[in-house]
């Protein structure tokens, strides 16, 4: 009988299910707060969490990394200075993403700066064919002097500003420079409705003012000129 009561005491001696120490436990002293059960619970969760992180974090990092990596800037020559004039656009094809063959090429419309439009005649303007609404390829229509998008009816004027349809900002441009008498095209940049350059944005994203914060620039894009 005495043994039974001793057993019962021992059964209750491990503490409550939550790991709170009880006075019957051997070695109990006033103010004790840690039990073996608690130690093991926390350790199991901690070590298990570490093991889970060891698998999950690299995987997530791998998937998310492209958001933070930026390609080096490349400049490509598209023709001698004499090829381009201020009155009309000339389409040129150049490579915007290396190593994927034809899928990395894009088209740009290039012209000389026009004094009548308050542009520097020594600067060249290269307009991207990516519509600022959702990215369809726009076409320059010479007779009308504007760019038309086939998808949802966006229309841009000679400088690329929106004159009709749903596009949210003017057409993107490419940085230009002249090296050894050849015009070279560089990274892409976007413009506000006043044609101020900003870092490149995806189609459909407003630019300028508060929109710079609602559609923040991404680390994967090159800085604006």
């Amino acid at each position, binding site marked *: 009988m005495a043994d039974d009561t001793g057993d019962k005491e021992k059964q209750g001696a491990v503490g409550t299910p939550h790991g709170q120490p009880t006075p019957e436990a051997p070695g109990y002293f006033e103010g004790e707060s840690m039990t073996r059960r608690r130690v093991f619970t926390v350790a199991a969760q901690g070590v298990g969490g570490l093991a889970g992180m060891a698998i999950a974090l690299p995987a997530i990092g791998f998937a998310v990394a492209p958001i933070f990596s930026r390609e080096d800037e490349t400049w490509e020559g598209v023709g001698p200075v004499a090829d381009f004039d201020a009155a009309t656009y000339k389409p040129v094809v150049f490579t915007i993403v290396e190593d994927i063959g034809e899928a990395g090429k894009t088209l740009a419309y290039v012209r000389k700066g026009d004094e009548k439009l308050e542009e520097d005649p020594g600067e060249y303007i290269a307009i991207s064919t990516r519509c600022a609404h959702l990215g369809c390829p726009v076409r*320059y229509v010479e*007779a*009308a002097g504007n760019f038309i998008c*086939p998808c949802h*009816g966006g229309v841009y004027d000679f400088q690329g500003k929106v004159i*009709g349809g749903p596009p949210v900002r003017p057409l993107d441009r490419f940085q230009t420079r002249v090296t050894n008498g050849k015009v070279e095209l560089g990274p892409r940049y976007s413009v506000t409705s006043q044609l101020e350059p900003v870092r490149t944005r995806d189609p459909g994203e407003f630019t300028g003012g508060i929109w710079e914060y609602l559609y923040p620039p991404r680390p994967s894009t090159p800085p604006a000129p």
Partner: protein
Amino acid sequence: MNSRDKEQYLQEYEVLKKKGKPFFPYAVMKDSVMMLVVAIVIVVMALVLGAEQGPKADPTTTTYVPRPEWYFFFLFEVLRVIKPPELVPIATIGIPTIAMMLLLLLPFYDRNPERAPQRRPIATTAGCLTIVAMAYLTYLGASAGAPDKIEMEVAAEYEEGKQFVAQSGCLACHKIGENGNDGPGPELTEIAQQIPRAAIYRSLQIGPGIMPSYADARPNEINAAADFLATLD
């Protein structure tokens, strides 16, 4: 649905289940027949319609007209008709997200314990309207013509004018027949009824308002265009 309705439903369900038939072979037979029908339909479509490859992907194109797969046509049509730029994010993100939320949370805001369609008028009407709207938008998206063609039969002498009008971006702002956009310019399908040819020619010359001027085009081109537009009545 309070707990009394729930209990009542469960009791009724038990009764109906007891009176039912075993899943195998009765329901399995119907399922198998339907599976066979589905298999036959897919195979016949594959054999008859085939799988042609289009031209290779070319990011440098300026003439291609992108279109999505048919089951996204309703979304494409919504994007096409929402013209003001401020409303674009609503059409691209707002409407689909709201639709998804409505669909996902349906059992939580539809508290009516009734199930028969005739006893749930709101749900039935909303469902039918949604189906009709989606079907109509899909049809509109499918029949949206390319923006650089005018699908209209014209006499041979107006063909040149028609091609010039089609290729010069007029359809970006004007609707001509089935093609083109509803704005910002007025519809030209019956323009000859409204203004004389001389007025059409002048519009092309000066480009009233935000319309660009076509004065730089060759004279025979503008004349051909005006001739063609003057036949639209």
